[in-house]
């Protein structure tokens, strides 16, 4: 994907929002190097700086996806190069487990990506961000906040329905002990 052909928000079209957690010593520095070298790439990544990829709590990733991120990128030092010795290995373990978990939740695993990028690899930052933007553009928006809204509306509708049935059955319900007879199945 060339940097000229990324989807433009000026046209109002959707474009992926990727939250990136970069470790201070390698990946963040590499992103700075990409900047200093003026390596143009897609504008879809928002970088959050941490001291080590080991700091990445799985909750950060799930929170990002829940708040509307279409993808999450984690950047750390290459194995054996972690500034804090082993933090990147711990990140790797958590990432492997989280990947399985989000797959079970129905989220495409390609939306979560872990890359080892060293401080000299500005070129790799450009390539990874471009690739990920392209992949997620292809997958389409994840839109979990919108899904939350939808589910809230469904639940509200369902609650109203149950209340209505209870009210209807309530007048003839003394023997049943107030329990409704049948329930509509919840929407999938």
């Amino acid at each position, binding site marked *: 994907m060339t940097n000229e052909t990324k989807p433009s928000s000026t046209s109002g079209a959707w474009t992926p929002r990727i939250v990136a957690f970069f470790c201070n010593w390698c990946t963040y520095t590499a992103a700075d190097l990409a900047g*200093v070298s003026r390596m143009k790439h897609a504008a879809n990544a928002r970088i959050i700086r941490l001291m080590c990829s080991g700091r990445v709590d799985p909750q950060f990733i799930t929170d990002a996806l829940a708040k509307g991120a279409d993808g999450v990128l984690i950047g750390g030092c290459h194995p054996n190069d972690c500034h804090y010795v082993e933090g990147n290995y711990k990140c790797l373990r958590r990432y492997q487990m989280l990947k399985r978990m989000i797959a079970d939740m129905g989220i495409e695993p390609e939306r979560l990506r872990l890359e080892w990028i060293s401080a000299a690899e500005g070129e790799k930052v450009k390539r990874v961000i471009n690739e990920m933007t392209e992949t997620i553009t292809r997958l389409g928006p994840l839109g979990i906040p919108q899904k939350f809204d939808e589910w809230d509306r469904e639940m509200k509708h369902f609650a109203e329905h149950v209340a209505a049935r209870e009210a209807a059955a309530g007048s003839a319900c003394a023997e049943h002990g107030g329990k409704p007879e049948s329930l509509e199945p919840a929407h999938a």
Partner: protein
Amino acid sequence: MKPIVPKKNEPIRIGYYICHCGTNIAGMVDVEAVAKYVAALPNVAISRNYKYMCSDPGQELIQQDIREHRLNRIVVEACSPLLHEHTFRKATEAAGLNPFYVQMVNTREHNSWVHTDRTEATRKAMALARAAVQRVPHHKPLEVKKVPVNPNVLIVGGGIGGIHAALTLANAGKIVYLVEKEATIGGHMAKFDKTFPTLDCAMCVLSPKMASVGSHPNIHLWTYSEVARVDGYVGNFQVAVRRKPRYILEDLCTGCQECVAACVFKEPKFADEFNLGLGKRKPVFLPFAQAIPPVVMIDPEVCLNFKRGKNPDGSRTVSDKCKKTCVEACGDRKAIDFKQTEEIKNINVGTIIMATGFQIFDAKRTPFFGYGVYPNVYNALEIERIINASGPTEGEIIMRNGQRPKKVAIVHCVGSRDENTNRWCSRVCCLYSLKLAHLIKEHTDAEVYNFYIDMRTPGKSMEEFYNRIAEEGMHLIRGKVADVYPDPNDGSTGRLVVQAEDTLTNKILKIPVDMVVLSVGLEPHPDAEALRRMFNLSCSSEGWFLERHPKLAPVNTFTDGIFLAGCCQGPKDIPDTVAQAGAAASEAFALIDRGHVEQEPNTAYILADECSGCKSCIPLCPYTAITFDEPRKKAIINEALCKGCGTCVASCPSGSIVQNLFEDEEIFSEIDGVLAPLPA
């Protein structure tokens, strides 16, 4: 300036500043629109845009606003925090506000410099600004940790770089530990004959410095030693040095070499490492005449007093097979000790300088040049020893077949500028090739052919040197050598044909020569990989130690307190090595003189009330900073050992570990901020 003490429940008042950075940011980001957007965000009291925030007026703007508008948080959207976080923290502190109430937003390196669409760049700037504005209210008033710096210095590597750094620091009154792997200091420079461009003798220039090191009261010279282990951090490194046994008591040996003369081996029989195998030595030997320390050593592999092979614990068994004429010759000095074992010395230093140098390219990896196959093919370092008056042939250029060459080919770029081996230019080979051409011609009056790709002679007086050499009648052929093979007309004498295309005349040349010299390139030292893991340094993709910034911090590394000098950072000549060694020494000296280092207060601590005692965090810390308090059944973090990686924080199931500067609330609010909907 009286410090501003935050009152409890005081409303947050954020001062937000977006920098134009000239046109670097403003050229791509609509800074006024961003400032306007931020002005409407919660808790923002001031929102400004300004041309150069890092300038004095820019910083004064922040300070003035802090005073006049009672600001208690600052957000600066500009370049990378790795560049100017310190600047804005200092400016804020000078105005009386805690410096850790500052948050920087990287909108230059990560935004305006790498994107091409103004609208997208502006929206990204807004999203990042919002994240910071939501994060900064959670910041706490932290205090910087001050750590004292041990004034001792460790220098790893005793070549010209390490020697120069050691002398500079020792002369300034600091205690220096100079650890060198070989039995003597001197490095590669000790093997050279003359140095370009002045053609002064390498040893004449080097040995006074070596002697100074040997006799300097402030330098602990530990040769035949290696660093075994490094712990600690800037200002406080604990280093274990392994001193290998040379079976000679260094303090007692006078360097008289009577043991060598008396050795039962009447003639030297074993390959001499200093002469790259071209000469011979005995089992007991002085590495070279000007060795510092001037102490002999015994090679246990060939000395008859040792059984072959090592014991499982690495020691050697003394066999008593030999008459020990060496001990007899040593007499009252009793400097020989066959039972010597390796010794581990533990030292504390505050700063470390890496000066471990390079290795030359192994020309066997380019087999078409015939190195190791045809006896008259040499690499440049071997020629240095042959030309040298104290070398194996006493300065006479005599080849392996006993003959003197009448025609010599010098092949440039062996193992350099080559996609199949090393892509980089090794910087010194064109110059040393010209030097060798001159010396060979001087010693033998032979015809010399230089085959080069480009003639690269950067540096002071180097172009003049090239002109001088060119005028002496060398044949300079611009064409990379494709093949070296035995002369079909004259193969029995060892004559070789060098085949190359002369790209200036477009002709294929096949030139018969007696001797071929391969100008081998420079490569990272084979120990570089192991060393950098021990010292926690980064390497470039080629294997050279990585400097913090190629222009602005060429001797610093990403590990505070460790500096680089010489070819371990990249190929360079002697003047540049010495200059860099001086720079590294002065960086170390600056730390020592200041006396303390300020550590970023990003350590973690445990909220004891919330800790459930599950012990999940304890095995995670690579610095063993977390221990378990059995009586109270809670985990505790030792702040002095904590490096602030945050790995334990992320693992705690009850969320009871907090990392200063990177608290969970702070990160969550950043995530929320970057994803918040923007105005259409």
